[in-house]
């Protein structure tokens, strides 16, 4: 499954900040950590701020911290901020044909499974998972 860059950065930023809600990190700190553009990350952080997941300082050196609920926020909550919901997707050409409709049913099945997976994993579950990179933080 391929996520758009903004979605991936949103997940990176939220998970990094949610590791320690007391800690503040600047957009530049986060950008350096994940090797991405701080300009792009600042835009992502604004979206996360509007959703109430992070609260941020002003300017390049202003720090951001996590203000959401680790147990109640799922990966899907973050993904939905950046990706169009399956039902809101623009119709592709050919979808009205019988082959297009049959293909669409298969793609919907995949989307539903992906959504169920993302919706079932809270930030808390993700951060306490056994992956060494998440435990060492």
């Amino acid at each position, binding site marked *: 499954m391929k996520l758009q860059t903004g979605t991936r950065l949103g997940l990176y930023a939220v998970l990094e900040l949610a590791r320690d809600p007391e800690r503040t990190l600047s957009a530049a700190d986060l950008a350096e950590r994940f090797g991405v553009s701080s300009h792009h990350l600042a835009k992502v952080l604004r979206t996360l701020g509007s959703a109430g997941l992070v609260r941020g300082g002003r300017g390049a050196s202003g720090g951001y911290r996590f203000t959401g609920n680790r147990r109640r926020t799922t990966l899907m909550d973050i993904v939905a901020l950046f990706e169009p919901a399956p039902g809101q997707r623009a119709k592709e050409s050919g979808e009205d044909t019988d082959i297009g409709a049959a293909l669409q049913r298969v793609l919907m099945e995949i989307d539903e499974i992906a959504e169920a997976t993302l919706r*079932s994993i*809270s930030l808390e579950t993700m951060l306490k998972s056994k992956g060494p990179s998440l435990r060492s933080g």
Partner: protein
Amino acid sequence: MVAIRLAQASDLPAISALDRRLTGSDKPQYWQDMLGPDRHFLVAETDKGALAGFIAGEVRAWEFGQPAAGWVFAIQIEPRLRLHGVGTQLFEALVARFKAKGVTRVRTLVDRKDHLILSFFRAQGMVAGPSLQLDKDLS
């Protein structure tokens, strides 16, 4: 604080009632069968003796071609007692029984639209297993 113990026939009315309230379906015979010798049927009881929740499972070998694993068939927690670790205690107690039987994997099937129960099992460390469930409407 709850105590975990084996379910008994006298627990069945409360188990059936809790399940009926949460799922809308009445299946007393199904719960009766869970008391069978190969089944692991546990209840969580409050210090006042009320039912806080239950879990049921069984070790099954070569089901759908898979080697022996502990299967969780059902878990229900009284809604007003949720978020206090009752489900986790029940799950851990069932897993301990599975381990004692020598199995090293635990499995379940979950409705993919039931995000609450999916989140619960994820929080217990469960991930997508090796099988995909397939289904066909025969009506």
